[in-house]
């Protein structure tokens, strides 16, 4: 089924973000693991795997719409040096992804591509939840101090 070319290029942009996200969260997860922060490792590892599954859905959708998914392009990773900075880098990434996705969902609505819209809405929901989780961590660090927070992540 032939898809709209504006939607196809927008889907490729979302795919690039997902592919970048896979790597950023995977590296952060394993950095946490290296420091023994297993709770943070688990959370970031799961996020990375989820991103892979989301990328898979996008790739399949792009192929279905007779486009070519661009798996070559990768955005810049923002990798922190310590926990708080890493959480901050992730929050910045999530915020950018959420604001990238909203106009694309509106474009799908406008072009009446409701199936693509649904796929993107599902991804957006998950990304918003992860941003909320990141904000919770920020709140916890501000209120219990970084030492106690880190102890809770062992």
């Amino acid at each position, binding site marked *: 089924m032939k898809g709209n070319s504006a939607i196809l290029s927008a889907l490729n942009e979302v795919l690039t973000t997902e592919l970048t996200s896979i790597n950023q969260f995977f590296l952060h997860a394993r950095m946490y693991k290296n420091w023994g922060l297993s709770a943070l490792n688990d959370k970031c590892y799961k996020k990375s795997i989820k991103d892979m599954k989301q990328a898979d859905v996008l790739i399949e959708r792009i192929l279905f719409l007779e486009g070519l998914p661009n798996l070559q392009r990768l955005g*810049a*990773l*923002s*990798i*922190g*040096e310590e926990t708080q*900075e890493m959480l901050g*880098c992730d929050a910045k990434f999530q915020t950018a992804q959420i604001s990238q996705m909203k106009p694309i969902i509106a474009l799908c609505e406008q072009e009446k591509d409701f199936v693509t819209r649904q796929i993107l809405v599902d991804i957006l929901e998950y990304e918003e939840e992860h941003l909320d989780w990141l904000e919770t961590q920020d709140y916890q660090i501000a209120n219990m101090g970084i030492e106690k927070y880190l102890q809770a992540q062992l």
Partner: protein
Amino acid sequence: MYVCLCKGITDKDIKEAVRAQGVGSLRELKQLMPLGSQCGTCTKVAQKIIDDTIIDDTMFKDVG
């Protein structure tokens, strides 16, 4: 955070180079460290860090 992942160069390294060595451009920075010599993805961010550090530190210091 890490600015150049290929060579493991952080924003702190760049700020330090601007403050201590008086680096004012990407070209000068590249003479001190191998930033941006592999994939080049980081050059935009590195340039912004140089600019921001210069503005923070010097631009309004001697005014008045």
